[in-house]
């Protein structure tokens, strides 16, 4: 099966995501991505991630939040919480990702686009994506 055929045929629906932890921190952003990054870095440090992995998580969340600015006209929400063995960051917005393989293919060597989601998959331990016509939720997990 070619990549095009893959992309054209929707995957079966995924189960809903489990609710965030009780101690979750929420932040609604529009263009203040620096604040989003500062919040993620602070929470990642508190959770005990090494500096390198904390910076990885900052990059991943910033890339996803940048897509909110690029592809929607409305605000996005960042939710951060800890659960056993990991810190989780979730970005929710009104955008729609139509391609189930978005971010899964390595961009070409001289590509000048398409690195955002790809980076997210490279640096995070687990990435969960739920997207339909009402919006997109991307959950990024980093083991401690």
């Amino acid at each position, binding site marked *: 099966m070619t990549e095009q055929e893959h992309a054209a045929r929707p995957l079966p629906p995924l189960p809903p995501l489990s609710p965030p932890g009780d101690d979750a921190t929420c932040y609604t952003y529009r*263009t203040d*991505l*620096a604040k989003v*990054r500062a919040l993620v870095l602070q929470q990642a440090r508190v959770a005990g991630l090494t*500096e*390198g992995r904390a*910076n*990885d998580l*900052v*990059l991943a969340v*910033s*890339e996803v939040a*940048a897509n909110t*600015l*690029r592809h929607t006209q409305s605000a996005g929400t960042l939710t951060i919480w800890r659960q056993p063995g990991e810190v989780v960051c979730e970005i929710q917005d009104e955008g729609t990702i139509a391609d189930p393989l978005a971010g899964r293919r390595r*961009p070409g*060597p*001289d*590509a*000048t*686009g398409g*690195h*955002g989601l*790809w*980076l997210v998959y*490279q*640096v995070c331990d687990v990435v969960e994506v739920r997207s339909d016509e009402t919006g997109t939720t991307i959950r990024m997990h980093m083991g401690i």
Partner: protein
Amino acid sequence: MDLLTTSVAAADGDPYTLVALAGEADVTNSGALRELLDAEVAKEPSTLVIDLSELRFMDSSALHVILRANRTMDRQGGVLALAGPRDPVAKMLRLTAADQLLPVYATVAEATAE
């Protein structure tokens, strides 16, 4: 607040242009970065060095602006080089393989040594 501050130097006798970026480069200021780089690239310098040593963060939209500038420099027969990326930026350049596409030096002095 301006998160990205840029400065440009092209000293007399120096056969290169130096653009220094400081702060955080992301999608909210990549348009300004593109204008700045386009203006410098249009002057057709033989070497354009981007000093990243004061840059705390760079996202893929800023990288794409740099890669486009690199493409134009290439076409003009010039060289675009990066200098002094700190950890998070250096890692991002490695993950995207941008460090295979254009030269990355530890310091501006090394980038301009030849």
